[in-house]
């Protein structure tokens, strides 16, 4: 292995208070230099996000978050109904839970984009179309 210079690292630093490694002791590697905030990691048992806010910049994104939330609620109720009693092994039951999973995955990905990657999916669209209703910007944690 060729040895080469690495950015000087503080090897004795301990981050035992936080389970993840933090680049805060090292000079920026050129990638995202966002400040590490103290928020629970996705891998801890306490779930991340869920409620409103948490990073959506544009109205359109907030609407999508809300829509997905609704879909999840609806589909869980539908699935419980479709799987009652003998119907538990039916195709309807399986499809119903698959719909729940689809919406849950979509919601989780959106949350990941907003909270970890700090990107609003409408960024590029709203850059080109700032006047549309979907691109109304929220300041801070306005609901």
């Amino acid at each position: 292995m060729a040895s080469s210079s690495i950015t000087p690292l503080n090897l004795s630093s301990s981050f035992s208070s936080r389970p993840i490694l933090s680049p805060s002791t090292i000079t920026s590697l050129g990638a995202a230099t966002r400040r590490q905030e103290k928020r629970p990691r996705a891998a801890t048992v306490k779930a991340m996000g869920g409620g409103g806010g948490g990073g959506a910049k544009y109205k359109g994104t907030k609407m999508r978050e809300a829509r997905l939330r609704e879909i999840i609620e609806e589909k869980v109720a539908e699935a419980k109904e479709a799987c009652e009693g003998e119907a538990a092994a039916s195709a309807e039951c399986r499809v119903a839970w698959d719909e729940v999973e689809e919406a849950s995955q979509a919601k989780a990905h959106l949350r990941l984009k907003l909270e970890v990657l700090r990107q609003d999916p409408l960024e590029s669209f709203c850059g080109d179309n700032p006047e549309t209703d979907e691109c109304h910007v929220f300041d801070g944690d306005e609901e």
Partner: protein
Amino acid sequence: MAVCTVYTTQSLHSTSSISTPSKTHLGFNQKKQILFYNSGKRVANRGITTVPWVIRCSGDTVVIGLAADSGCGKSTFMRRLTSVFGGAAEPPKGGNPDSNTLISDTTTVICLDDYHSLDRTGRKEKGVTALDPRANDFDLMYEQVKALKEGKAVDKPIYNHVTGLLDPPELTKPPKILVIEGLHPMFDQRVRDLLDFSIYLDISNEVKFAWKIQRDMAERGHSLESIKASIEARKPDFEAYIDPQKQYADAVIEVLPTRLIPGDNEGKILRVKLIMKEGVKYFSPVYLFDEGSTISWIPCGRKLTCSYPGIKFTYGPETYFGHEVSVLEMDGQFDRLDELIYVESHLSNLSSKFYGEVTQQMLKHSEFPGSNNGTGLFQTIVGLKIRDLYEQITASKAAAPLEATKA
């Protein structure tokens, strides 16, 4: 016959197509000695170079398949992969905001949900889940992946996960590296044969359950029971259609609960295996200390202090679905930077370009889930392996015309 296509990067729609004979005395330089034609009118080279353009010749695109059951936008794996090549992967600019595609300078990531033949309503009517092959158009998938691999742009459908509908197609141009991610990248034999490398993300049931709890418990409508029911209901289709693909994968990342803490079922500490097929062209498995031998290694001790429960590595040859494989396993998690560097310095065949590259890549994305355990580590290593594979393939293609001229 090699087909080369010119794309202007500003406009999605202006393309000029020219073909060059593959056997030519021009050798490597064939790309530079081409005249550009635009709708019959001859345009000088100089005129076009004022508009940023890129030329893509057939056979340039390397295709990677990634199978997993966590939906598209496995953003963290993809970001690790694309960042190894440099540049960040973004959704396509100016198109459908609900597009699932990610594009960086070198890489385009396509979500295979875009090849659903049935939308949400259609699937409900027919009584099939998204996992079912009947809900997917493998003919179109094959056709388009083949076209992209050959350097041709395609109009790829978009599956909108919010509305559950199939939206109008988006123009997708052939990249240097095409990643197809989703439930069925290796299901259809024809598509499988187009893949230069394939990965399967295998999450064990216990870990899946723990992750879904973390993911869904905060959502209104979900409860422990509903999460459990959802997993159970999807199991039959998953086991019938998705799971069997892992036998075809060149690399499998298997995520299991830890063995370091007896009775642990919280899923916080993970045991992750990197199962690497032997004999795959351009892919040399990572190893610990002595290739082909069996090793058990606990790095924590006199030189390295780890906090509970520590880290344990194993490495060795095994058989997986009748194939010879090498398995590298990490159980536990990293708490400090020096643990990561120490581990990296003892692994061989990483395909890193400099000492500490794996550590640096892990740090770049330290906020991503999995950054302190085997999932992040092995995803990063797979990224380096893919880079290595890509470089070897392109080098061998460049050498081919030279060989032809010598003949």
